[in-house]
């Protein structure tokens, strides 16, 4: 049986956890087709639809697998099979639309539909592939990376 005190504690924990997580989150997995892993702070986990994408995450798609991520500024990132994508930095202020997005495609292919950050502050958004750095002026594009 749950005691009244325990219930309050549980509710407080939930109420505190949700908004904090929402703030730290860079984005959310909307498409996981096949096997996709996320490496966060040295720990490798299987990605799930609805799961969080955080700054610093390395997203790895297996052969025949796709991953679709919507970031908090509505940027949409879609990775092809055999890809490795790193979210190097992400921040987004929903009031001012200021923030930063730096991502690197280490291997594979990535389709990008840019979001509110690129619209409001294009200089704050960059993508890397190989030795190239791509600055975005509010647009859609595809990246390819040969891998190391």
């Amino acid at each position, binding site marked *: 049986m749950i005691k009244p005190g325990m219930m309050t504690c549980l509710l407080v924990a939930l109420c505190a956890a949700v908004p904090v997580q929402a703030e730290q989150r860079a984005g959310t997995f909307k498409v996981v087709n096949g096997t996709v892993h996320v490496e966060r702070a040295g720990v490798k986990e299987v990605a799930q*639809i609805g799961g969080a994408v955080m700054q610093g995450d390395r997203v790895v798609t297996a052969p025949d697998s796709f991953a*679709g991520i919507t970031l908090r500024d*509505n940027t*949409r990132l879609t990775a092809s099979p055999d890809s490795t994508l790193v979210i190097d930095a992400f921040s987004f202020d*929903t*009031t001012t639309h200021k923030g930063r997005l730096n991502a690197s495609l280490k291997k594979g292919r990535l389709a990008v539909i840019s979001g509110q950050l690129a619209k409001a502050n294009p200089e704050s958004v960059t993508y890397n592939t190989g030795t190239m*750095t791509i600055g975005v002026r509010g*647009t859609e594009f595809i990246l390819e990376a*040969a891998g190391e």
Partner: protein
Amino acid sequence: MDVRCKQLIASALVFGCLSSAHAGQYWTSSNGLPVRDNAGNCVEQGVQANTLQPGCDAMNRVILLPDASGEVGAVVVMSEGGSKTLNTAYGAAYQGTEGQLEESAASSEEVSSRFGQLLQQQPLPAETFTLRFTSGSATELTPDSLAMIPRLSASLEERKAPEIRIVGHTDRVGSLLANDRLSKARAQTVAKVLNEKGIPMDMMEVTGRGEREPEVATSDGVDEPRNRRVEISIR
């Protein structure tokens, strides 16, 4: 020039043919990049390659696409070897074998053959609903706005792991800071209304943009009802 080379010129999308191809399985240009046919496939030495092969695929490249409405933005590509701006549909830049930056257009045919499957996997775009209040009320939505709620529910149902962001906006009467607070209060009002219709509070992110994003541009201090609104964005 031999017959083989002439065939390559006829079929290669971008690059010319070299009589002496680099070591490897595929025809390559002077930049060390694969020669591709009209479908975007690499052209194998000796035999025409019908399928993509790993060695041929490996390149660092960016291809600019038109957006859903057909408009084309721009990307600036920077490298040790300089910088290039792409601003035409299917414009592309790639890293050559020596690390140099090269420019060479792709085509819609190559994009659909090489990236069609990838583009089909993209998450759904965010859908935005604009709600307004009846005149002088901060809590009562107009009949038109109330009628949008079923459409909003339908948009939620078609999505996997849906998220809702509720963004309040103001006109330019009052200070920036005061309007930030007011816009957030408007968004909170809408969140309560949606919550009463059965949408859990923790699915909604509530924020205010103040006077930063007017629907109708005005001078500071102008009372403009069309700018006093709340946008619900579902993604």
